[in-house]
């Protein structure tokens, strides 16, 4: 059954690296910080996870140690990546770097009230 694992592993490798590339491309193409964060986080998270799991699958019959370490890294990435991108998004809003809004709807920025309230408190 060695070939099955190799096929799974190879496919995960390809998918993962493709998404890593897409993450880079997303960062490159998107128009503002929030959209870049969206593209970057999602694509690199899935890309990294599947690439690492792919390597784990490729080595699974040599030893299970690779899989164990791969799983721990994957769990860590799954927790840490969204946290860091959330922290960045919040930081950018606190720096008054408002998101790009293309449509004319006024309610599009629901967070603005909060930051305006904070500003008033600061002035007072």
């Amino acid at each position, binding site marked *: 059954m060695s070939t099955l694992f190799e096929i799974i592993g*190879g496919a995960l490798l390809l998918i993962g690296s493709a998404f890593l*590339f897409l*993450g880079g491309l997303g960062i490159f193409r998107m128009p503002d*910080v929030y959209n870049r964060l969206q593209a970057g986080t999602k694509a690199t998270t899935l*890309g990294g996870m599947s690439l690492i799991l792919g390597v784990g699958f490729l080595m699974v019959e040599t030893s299970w140690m690779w899989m164990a370490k791969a799983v721990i*890294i994957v769990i860590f990435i799954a927790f*840490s990546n969204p946290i860091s991108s959330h922290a960045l998004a919040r930081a*950018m809003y606190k*720096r008054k770097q408002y998101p790009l809004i293309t449509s004319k709807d006024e309610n599009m920025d629901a967070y603005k009230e909060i930051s305006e309230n904070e500003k008033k408190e600061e002035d007072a």
Partner: protein
Amino acid sequence: MTYIIYISFSFMIVGLFLAAIRFIKGPTAGDRTVALDTLTTILVAGLFLLAYLFERIIYVDVALVYAVLGFIGVIVIARYLEGAL
């Protein structure tokens, strides 16, 4: 199998390149930090793949540590950008 690894590496190199361009172009601090974050994640995956290429499990520890420290670095930079370090 070799070809798959080659293709993966080439994808990653292009991704790194694009992230690096974004790092240099900016225009805001946030963009640069996003680029740093992406660079870290891609490199973690790359290190793991390299460990497979070298066929030595001891190398995996480096990737693990790298992921942890990159995460903390980004959090600290974000906190600085908030103006509340």
